[in-house]
């Protein structure tokens, strides 16, 4: 098709400029919304611009004009064909009460698999430790080298200390724990990119460490110390790793796409918001776990009764379970009934 380019540009330029202005306004103002007339106008301008691009595509001499129109059509296409909502107002209370627990429940099966992988690791380690206690150093990685010693010796040492080892160091220790646990959780989720296998392996490995330590202390008759030491922070920290694994398995499931006819990109697009919700929830919970580990878990009898620590940890665990399984359930049911 041959066109009079000068005339064409002069005639169409006002429409391109108007579309550019409209798009800039929509892009800059995240909360912007248009009325029906505005939407109709946007769609008209988009169609006109797309039609101009089709004309210019046949006119070789204007690569710059083609690029300009492609950019404009691309931006308008993104705004018009996007079915996902614009970035909504941040509602932290609603997010905590509804979004996070509902997302967790929506992927309950992935959570069960994640929990199973960790328990399998723990069971495997426990069986190995029962048969060959000398393999403790093999099951527990070197960064936890302080756990290689005899549990009873450690308990005696901890109970004999004046409890001031962390004095002036609590916040730093807490920050270090939060940072490390967050890194491990993100890694566990990201490893799900390997068709979920990476997440399963990391969960199994974490289970191995947990199982080896637990059985070591139980066999040494230090179960009460173990619960008093691990439960206050572990009641949140361990579920967090399982939740991160859950996110990794959701990611892996989207990549495998078993029984789902949608394309990979569509599947990833679908699970993206849920992954971010799960990992954000994990990060928030880990802040609490880090604070508890630095300020409470490291204090033992006679400074702090084990019964109190165990009760605290058990309460946390029950509350966390109630929160994840029950919070926002009523609204969810109402929405299901309404639909």
């Amino acid at each position, binding site marked *: 098709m041959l066109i009079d380019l000068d005339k064409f540009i002069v005639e169409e330029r006002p429409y391109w400029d108007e579309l550019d202005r409209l798009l800039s306004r929509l892009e800059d103002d995240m909360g912007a919304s248009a009325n029906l007339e505005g939407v109709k106008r946007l769609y008209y301008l988009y169609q006109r611009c797309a039609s101009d691009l089709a004309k210019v595509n046949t006119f070789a001499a204007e690569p*710059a004009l083609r690029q300009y129109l492609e*950019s404009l059509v691309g931006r308008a296409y993104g705004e018009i064909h996007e079915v996902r909502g614009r970035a909504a107002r941040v509602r932290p209370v609603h997010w905590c009460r509804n979004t996070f627990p509902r997302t967790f429940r929506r992927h309950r099966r992935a959570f069960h698999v994640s929990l199973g992988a960790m328990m399998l690791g723990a069971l495997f380690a426990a069986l190995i430790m029962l048969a060959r206690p000398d393999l403790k150093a093999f099951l527990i990685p070197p960064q936890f080298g302080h756990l290689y010693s005899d549990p009873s010796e450690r308990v005696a040492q901890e109970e004999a200390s004046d409890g001031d080892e962390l004095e002036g160091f609590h916040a730093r220790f807490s920050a270090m724990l939060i940072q490390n646990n967050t890194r491990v959780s993100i890694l566990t989720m990201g490893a799900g990119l390997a068709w979920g296998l990476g997440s399963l392996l990391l969960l199994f490995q974490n289970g191995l460490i947990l199982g080896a330590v637990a059985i070591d202390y139980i066999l040494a008759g230090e179960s009460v110390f173990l619960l008093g030491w691990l439960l206050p922070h572990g009641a949140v920290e361990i579920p967090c790793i399982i939740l991160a694994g859950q996110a990794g398995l959701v990611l892996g499931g989207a990549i495998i796409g078993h029984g789902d006819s949608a394309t990979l990109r569509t599947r990833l697009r679908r699970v993206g918001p849920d992954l971010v919700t799960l990992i954000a929830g994990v990060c928030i919970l880990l802040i609490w776990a880090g604070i508890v580990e630095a300020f409470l878990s490291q204090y033992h009898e006679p400074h702090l009764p084990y019964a109190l620590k165990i009760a605290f940890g058990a309460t946390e665990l029950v509350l966390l379970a109630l929160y994840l399984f029950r919070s926002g359930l009523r609204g969810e049911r109402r929405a299901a009934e309404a639909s």
Partner: protein
Amino acid sequence: MADLALVNRLDIRTPEGITFSKPLAGIPSRCVAWLVDTLARITCTVLISMALGWIVPVLPEFGAIVQLLIYVILGFGYNVGFEWFWHGQTLGKRLLRLRVMDAQGLRLQFHQIVLRNLIRPIDGMPAGYGVGLIAILLNRRNQRLGDLAGNTVVVRAPRLEEPDVEQVVGGKYNSFRDYPHLEARLRQRVTPEETSLLLQALLRRDQLDANARVVLYADMAAHFREYASFPEEATRGLTDEQYLRNVADSLFRRGSGARG
């Protein structure tokens, strides 16, 4: 040249049947952008740490938390914040004219930006973005793992400028103007990529080695002769370079096209 066919492109076909494409960013430009961002982050960290340096001796516990916050905010929040508020660009990407966009051309969502940056440590493993580089090399859309998870791509966003045609044409008489029907055929048949290539070849005339330039212009002139064969009197005495300049003038001159 933004239109070289050698560059991987993201082609998007709209439901209206219109296709638009974006040139994908390659590894070198992404590496340079990353270096600029890293330098910016380090500079910010040092400056903020210096400004808040008085806190650590006075309140060591609080100071440690502040330092951690700075580390987290600048390490993770830098990319997320910039990419969200600058529509897919960080400082480095803006300097290198790169942009993160949705892989399907739709509006970039906040969770996509968060996801692509959450996976960054995995792309960074074992060192120097090893995993990410391998993923980019193996992927048609130059996506690292973070891009795959977030369903994003990094595209080149060149500045859109009108080409400097006057410099190429130079106001000399163009014998092709006497044959508007042949000029029209030329405009119809030459692709935008070829037009851009021609323009760049002429604009970069002085950067080319003299012998290489003669060979290149001869090849290009032979190529364009296949599209429209101008009569002997229009091409007599024309060097290959002048032939190409005449072609450029015919392609870019406005108001000369046949009316359709």
